[in-house]
């Protein structure tokens, strides 16, 4: 039985565990039909030309996590930003772990999707936002069909959330192969600010496949900063589908740090529904071995006077492969749009590859759009300059690669996170950077 067949047939079993007489379940039923119809994408799909899911779909994944596997905080502390106070929503093998989490309902809701989907208190927010911006492609539909658990964050009007929120998914190896489908909904109302850090971490060498969907709504003048740490082990794969809808004068940034994992696909779509919106999409990818990271972005400029900034850097070693496919659409009404996109890559090994493709579809005439992609090796004259000052080859290379990815870090607003990412980058590049930033 293929994974698709298995998933479709297990939908009935899934229905035994959820309330089927709800609007939500109508959405799920609709979605499983869409998935049945569309299935998993293949290389024949233009957007999946350079990313094949074959090798990760072949495992016999368990699609329903069984019991919560208790883990001690001390064993996994390293995967948290732990030197500052944060809210935490923690899942173990897809199940909520109350003892590792720190949620709240005081002034804002930081809690579980399962609660939000069932409790009357959240009904209005769910009706207004759930599955409203997510795409209807095969993978997102699959997630929607099984949507039950994940993070639910609702920040009401005029609230500056005083500490970051961490969403962390662990997998323990309880199952010989595990598929997870977390579903997150983040709604940030007028004038409110929030910072979110998301991480998927496998604690086992067993294969794990995560197909997650996150919907983010930044209402008028909201400020949302979302950071994704993708540093999972080499048997874990992630398909991240994130959809951002922005209203006027809001700011929403998504930073994606991709260092680990076997296969990582980031579908990141932004829709600007209002004027003077700022959308920021940044990423640092540093991979080696046979790792694969694919960034597939869309920024849809719908109204006038908005901006978007995309800056993705990639460093590829060994047989690693990368894809950057950045699409910017500027509608006819979206005059005075400023859309910037850059994708710079360094191929450390001659066996590494990157496919980079900007796609601009501009229907307005008064716009500023720039895009640039570069693929190169390290600058030899810069390397000699560093070496001539006594910095050894390896450190010099590391320092140059570090510098290369540095300006993506400059927009990280949480100092402890920035420091952590800096260290991860140094570790990943195998260098000891002789200074603090």
């Amino acid at each position, binding site marked *: 039985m293929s994974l698709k067949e298995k998933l479709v047939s297990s939908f009935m079993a899934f229905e035994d565990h959820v309330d089927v007489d709800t609007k939500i379940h109508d959405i799920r039923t609709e979605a499983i039909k869409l998935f049945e119809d569309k299935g998993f994408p293949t290389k024949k799909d233009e957007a999946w030309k350079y990313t094949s899911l074959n090798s990760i779909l072949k495992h016999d994944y368990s699609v329903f996590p069984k019991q919560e596997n208790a883990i001690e905080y001390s064993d996994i502390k390293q995967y948290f930003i732990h030197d500052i106070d944060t809210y935490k929503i923690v899942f173990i093998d897809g199940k909520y772990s109350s003892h590792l989490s720190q949620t709240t309902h005081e002034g804002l809701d930081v809690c579980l999707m399962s609660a939000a989907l069932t409790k009357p208190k959240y009904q209005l927010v769910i009706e207004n936002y759930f599955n409203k911006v997510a795409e209807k492609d095969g993978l997102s539909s699959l997630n929607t069909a099984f949507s039950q658990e994940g993070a639910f964050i609702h920040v009401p009007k005029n609230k500056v959330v005083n500490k970051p929120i961490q969403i962390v998914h662990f997998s323990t190896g309880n199952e010989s192969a595990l598929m997870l489908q977390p579903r997150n909904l983040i709604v940030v109302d007028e004038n409110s600010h929030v910072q979110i850090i998301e991480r998927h971490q496998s604690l086992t060498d067993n294969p794990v496949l995560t197909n997650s969907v996150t919907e983010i709504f930044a209402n008028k003048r909201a400020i949302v900063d979302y950071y994704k740490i993708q540093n999972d082990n080499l048997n874990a794969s992630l398909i991240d589908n994130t959809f951002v809808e922005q209203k006027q004068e809001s700011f929403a940034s998504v930073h994606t740090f991709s260092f680990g994992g076997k296969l990582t696909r980031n579908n990141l779509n932004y829709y600007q529904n209002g004027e003077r919106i700022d959308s920021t999409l940044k990423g640092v990818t540093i991979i080696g071995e046979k790792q694969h990271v694919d960034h597939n972005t869309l920024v849809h400029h719908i109204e006038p006077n908005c901006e978007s900034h995309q800056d993705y850097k990639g460093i590829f070693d060994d047989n690693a492969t990368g894809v950057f496919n950045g699409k910017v659409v500027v509608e006819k009404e979206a005059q005075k749009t400023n859309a910037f996109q850059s994708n710079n890559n360094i191929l450390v090994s001659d066996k590494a590859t990157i496919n980079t493709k900007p796609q601009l579809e501009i229907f307005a005439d008064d716009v500023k759009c720039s895009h640039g992609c570069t693929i190169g090796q390290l600058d030899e004259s810069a390397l000699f300059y560093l070496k001539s*000052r*006594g910095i050894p080859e390896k450190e010099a290379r590391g320092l140059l690669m570090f510098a290369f990815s540095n300006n993506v870090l400059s927009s990280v607003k949480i100092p402890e996170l920035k420091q952590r990412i800096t260290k991860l980058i140094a570790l990943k590049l195998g260098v000891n*950077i002789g200074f603090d930033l």
Partner: protein
Amino acid sequence: MLKINNLHASVEDKSILKGINLEVKPGEVHAIMGPNGSGKSTLASVIAGKEDYEVEDGDIFLEGENINELAAEERAHKGVFLSFQYPVEIPGVSVTNFMKTAINESRKAKGLEDMPANEMLKLIREKSELLEIDRKFLSRSLNEGFSGGEKKRNEIFQMAMLEPKLAILDETDSGLDIDALRIVANGVNKLKNKDNAVVVITHYQRLLDYIVPDYVHVLLNGRIVKSGTKELAHELEEKGYDWIKEEVGA
């Protein structure tokens, strides 16, 4: 300090240095002059260990040790310093962090601990004052967007920080305004002592009024064709290179 015997070097099968002989003793200042394209920067790069250049024949000794096979960083650890004719821009690394890394890597190579932070700060303060460099400048990305003169001044700041045994200054004077030239030359002179040596590559006599050479060499078409004292520089300033070309039949 430095002894070069019959050095031949080429790049991409193009022969550039064609039998250089040069000896620089501790405490000496040597000037190398010569027309554009004669091989001055190539000589400097080969001494500093740039791998693009193939040493086909000859030897380079530093304090009696053959350094032909040493990597650029190892030569730096032994006290070779090159002030670049065209310093490279390194976006994303500040001058300060660059110097900290350079100093601590050199110390590590010598089996020393990292320099304590307060000592480092003191050193940076002292040397930036010597070269009259604004402290704000040091937190900028290395050479990125620096003016021509700022880059050169920054090179000598790095030299002051690293205190090399053998400093090769490749056209450090070009791009400097008159005041900056004086400040930079003064910096070099302050660092000069009986145990180290300086090789200055320049097109102009003017720098040599400040950094007074013991010997002046003329490099022509990959060879040192004439050597003399500082008077030779005056003569070149006056007469150009044609008479030397005639003399050597080039």
